[in-house]
């Protein structure tokens, strides 16, 4: 089966690098699947789950939560630069809920526009994380 190169990198490390049959990335304007020989594109990534199909196109072999970032797709490869990364199986619901509560408080306490956007972003990421837990 034809495969494409998929790389997932966070600022701190290279998380995944290898051949995959398909990968589904949560793009800013909707999820998109990348198959071999995909048209070249660059997109922003919203917080959500990346699904990696390593062997074939019908079975997800790995799910990874990313807190936003960028994706670059060319004919031979797909590179995702993620802001923050967490393996889907390792998400701790309790901790996430607590973090979300804190983040919401931060949002209410935000003193200026910049703090507000920063906190809102954080809330959004955590909400998406919880939603991901519901969905999959």
């Amino acid at each position, binding site marked *: 089966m034809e495969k494409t190169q998929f*790389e997932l*990198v*966070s*600022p*701190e*490390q*290279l998380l995944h690098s290898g051949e995959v049959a398909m990968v589904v990335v949560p*793009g*800013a*304007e909707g999820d998109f699947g990348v198959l071999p020989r995909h*048209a*070249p*594109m*660059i*997109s*922003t990534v919203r917080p959500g789950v990346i699904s990696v199909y390593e062997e074939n196109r019908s079975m997800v072999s790995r799910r990874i939560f990313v807190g936003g970032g*960028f994706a*670059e797709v*060319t004919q031979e490869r797909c*590179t995702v*630069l993620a*802001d923050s990364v967490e393996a889907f199986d390792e998400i701790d619901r309790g901790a996430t809920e607590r973090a979300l509560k804190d983040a919401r408080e931060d949002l209410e306490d935000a003193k200026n526009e*910049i703090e507000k956007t*920063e906190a809102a972003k954080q809330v959004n990421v955590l909400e998406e994380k919880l939603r991901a837990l519901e969905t999959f």
Partner: protein
Amino acid sequence: MASLKELRSRISSVKSTQKITSAMKMVAAAKLRRAQEQVEASRPYADRMARMLGSLAGSVQGSNGPKLLTGTGKDDVHLLIVATADRGLCGGFNSSIVRDARKHIEQLKSEGKTVKIICVGRKGRDQLRRQHGNDILETVEGVTKPRPTFDKAHAIAQDVLNRFDQGEFDVCTLFYARFKSAISQIVTRQQLVPFDEEHSANLEAAEEEAQAEKQAGFVYDYEPDEEEILKELLPRNLAVQIYKAILENNASENGARMTAMDNATRNAEEMIKDLTLVYNRTRQAEITKELIEIISAKEAM
């Protein structure tokens, strides 16, 4: 000539100093290895980001790009980020960064520009405070404790971006020491704002690659569009560059400390040797003297 007792205590004090320096050397060596691993681990992200920026910056030419890319059109106020270590005892590491920063500050001031400074690391602030204390806006400490993380770099970048949005500066330059080897660290000046294509690491190669791809009938689709992506990518790049500087600095600091402590240990060794020689000689002389005294006393009887 020093008495035997004094010599003995000198020797034991040099010995304990040597123990400390050799322990510090070993700690620095272990930390260096970890720091190097972190630098290696962060490289893929920075490379890919440079590649993306290369292909994007080429497509958004002209004056309508984001200000982080094109600048404010002035260069009156300069913000310098001086990244040093929090601790000393690492040879000329801190001083050489500060020396370069100071040179830059003086040049800017002689041209009548305003200079603002953000210090990352306590030692840099300590050295700059005397002459340029009024220009220091902020000092960030403890970025490498317990280890450098991207979040810390991100926080610094956020602060810089806020200041930029409020029009507090026009040009931003970062000072740090690039790690080459344990004995060689290169003080580096990097312009962050406006985005300087020439000085950005690997960017030229990345752009060439992008160019080559373009010629091969390679045109990217942008989602949402170039400007939107750039608007997110540029601040991100700033944080990545600062993160890179912190990591390189961390490796450089430990490399410099390792070399400095190695030298100190060797010097202590030499000092102990010399002192022991003097000690033994003195002891011998004393014994001889006493013998002569006994013998001559005996003869006089």
